[in-house]
Structures are given as structure tokens and as C-alpha cells.
């Protein structure tokens, strides 16, 4: 039995201390998922807290054969999707404001200009994410931020693996389309330094 499983077992037996260790360990991935899903720091904080409350209440139902991280992220993703569906008629601004968590400049970045440009791109991406269907967005966030495999995403979002694949394709195509429309100069500027992704 690994350390994490030992904490889970203790938490299932009612140890608040063990559950605190789990909250400490998973607060960042859960918060990040909620933030990328909901687009606002306050809403993300609230959703992450609610996720841990749900986990606390349903810990007895957790099947130890499954990955705890996937189960936890599944609860967070479903909570955010429900919340987005409930507020679909309420529009909100996701422009960066004073309350937005700061993405601190990367000290290892080659120069401040590149870093500023990168941060602008990140802010732009964050904005674009909000235009996606909630389930597509959740699939994308789980894939890129949480490094989940397609099988894990399928388990977390209660989808089939082909459906996950199709949603990921659709989401990236949609993002690329808006990216192309909104940043027409990006292509010519980016080409000299080729993508390290390929």
C-alpha cells in the first residue's frame, strides 16, 4: 500500500488529519481545473472547496481499485460542468482584473519581452477556452494541464474513449479557428522558431 492509499484509508476511517493531507496534495490540480473551467478565481475557489466537500462526504464510496486523482478530478469536472450549464444565460467577463491570480514572470525565460508575449498568449488562450462547450473544455484541461490519458478522461467525464478523442479534436480545431481569426499575424511571426511540439 503506497502513502497516498494509506492516507485515503485513514480518511475513510474518519481521520480529518489524513483528509487534510489529501487536500494539501490535490488543491492545486483541482483549483487549476476549476479555474480553467470557470474562468474566474472566486468561482474556482468556491468550486474547488465544494469539490473537496463532496469528496469528504462520499469518500466511503470511493473504489480503491480506481485512481484517486481521476475520481477527484471527475467530481471537480462534473461540478464545474453543472455550474456552467446553470449559468449559461449569465454572461461574465473573463478579462484579467485585479483579482485574477497572477502568473508570475518566469525567471528562467530568455528575456522579458518573450515572457510578456507568452503571458499575453496564455491570457488569450484562457479567454478562448471559455468559448468552448463545457465538456470539451473539461476534456482539454484534463489532457493538457492534468496530463490525463484518453482513458482517464473517459472515466472522469463518463464518456467513451472515441468520444473523448473526438471532443479533443473538435476543441482544438475550434480554438485554432478562433486563434487564426484573432491573431492573423501570429503565423508569420511564429514560423521562424518552429514548434518544439513536432
Amino acid at each position, binding site marked *: 500500500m503506497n502513502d497516498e492509499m494509506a492516507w485515503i484509508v485513514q480518511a475513510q476511517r474518519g481521520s480529518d488529519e489524513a483528509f487534510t493531507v489529501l487536500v494539501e496534495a490535490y488543491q492545486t490540480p483541482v483549483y487549476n481545473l476549476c479555474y480553467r473551467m470557470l474562468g474566474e478565481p472566486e468561482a474556482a475557489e468556491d468550486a*474547488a*472547496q465544494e469539490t473537496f466537500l463532496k469528496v469528504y462526504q462520499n469518500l466511503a464510496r470511493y473504489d480503491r481499485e480506481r485512481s484517486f486523482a481521476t475520481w477527484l478530478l*471527475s467530481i471537480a469536472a462534473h461540478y464545474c460542468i453543472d455550474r456552467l450549464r446553470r449559468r449559461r444565460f449569465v454572461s461574465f467577463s473573463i478579462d484579467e482584473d485585479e483579482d485574477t491570480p497572477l502568473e508570475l514572470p518566469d525567471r528562467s525565460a530568455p528575456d522579458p519581452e518573450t515572457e510578456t508575449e507568452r503571458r499575453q498568449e496564455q491570457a488569450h488562450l484562457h479567454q478562448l477556452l471559455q468559448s468552448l462547450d463545457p465538456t470539451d473544455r473539461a476534456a482539454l484541461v484534463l489532457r493538457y494541464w492534468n496530463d490525463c490519458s484518453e482513458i482517464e478522461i473517459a472515466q472522469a467525464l463518463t464518456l467513451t474513449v472515441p468520444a473523448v478523442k473526438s471532443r479533443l479534436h473538435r476543441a482544438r480545431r475550434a480554438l485554432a479557428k478562433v486563434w487564426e481569426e484573432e491573431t492573423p499575424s501570429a*503565423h508569420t511571426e511564429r514560423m521562424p522558431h518552429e514548434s518544439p511540439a513536432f
Partner: protein
Amino acid sequence: MNHRPFEDWMLDDTDLTPEQKLELQAHLRVCAQCAALTDVNLVLREARVISPAAGFTARFHVRLTAQRQAQRKRMVWGFLILVISGVSILSWFAWPLLRVVLDSPVEALSTWLSYLLSLWFWLQAVGEAGAVLLRVIPTFVPPYFWPLAALAFIGWSLLWALSIWRFAKIPQGV
């Protein structure tokens, strides 16, 4: 413009050979659509993980305590409502009986006593009839019936336990 197979390579995150990489780079120089897909892929890969503000766990404990208190309050209220409504319903049903008792207590008492006595005699009669039957039935039942009946009982019990276990299996996800 034909985006195949470049788009598939990018969407499937295919590991490319050096020749395929060169082909893809040549395509990206002339295709803005695929270049945008590359850009998005790159930005997604570089995206940072955002952490919550400091003190997340402490805030969680505050919320958990508040939720426990609210739950306790709900339980107390639920219990009170249950008791009050139970007492009210019982009183409503018992009211006609209470009225009879209050109007003529001696008559009500004698009625109840006669009812209890007749119930006692009836139970005695049933008991005696049962004892007679128990004495008579074994002479008609073949001896192999009893082990068969015991086996059938065990089988049904196992089937019942199995079905309960299957239906009560904990589902995952919340």
C-alpha cells in the same frame, strides 16, 4: 488546401520521423489553418498550472465545520418535525377513543376487559389446534421431506443474499 495527413498528425500527437517533420514544416509555411493548430497546441503545452491563494486548507476546514453545524441543525429540526407530526397524527386518530373514555370511563374499561378476555381465549384455542396439528402432521410427511426443505431454505437464503449484494454494490462517481 488539403490538410491531410498533417492535421491528423497534430491532432493525434503522432511521433513524427525526421522526413515527416520536414514535410509538416513545409506545409505549415503555407497553411495558416494548420499553423494556428500548431500555435494552439504549443500554447496549451506551455500553459502554467494556477495554484489557489495561500490558506486553501484552512478555508476548507472553516467550510467543513460550517457544513457540519448546518447538517446537525437540519437533523435536529428534522427530528423535531417528525416527533411533532407523529404525535399530532396519533392524537388525531386517538381522539374519538379518548372522548369515549372521558365520557364513560367504567363502560370503556369493561368493554376493553371483555375484549382482552375474548382475545386470550381465542389465542388459547389457536394454540391447542396448532399442537394437535404438530402431533398429526409428522405421521403424514415422508422422512426425506425435512432435509429437502432445509436445502431449499438454504438455497433461497443464498439467492437472497447474492441479490442484495449485487444491488447494493457501490456505484462510482458522484
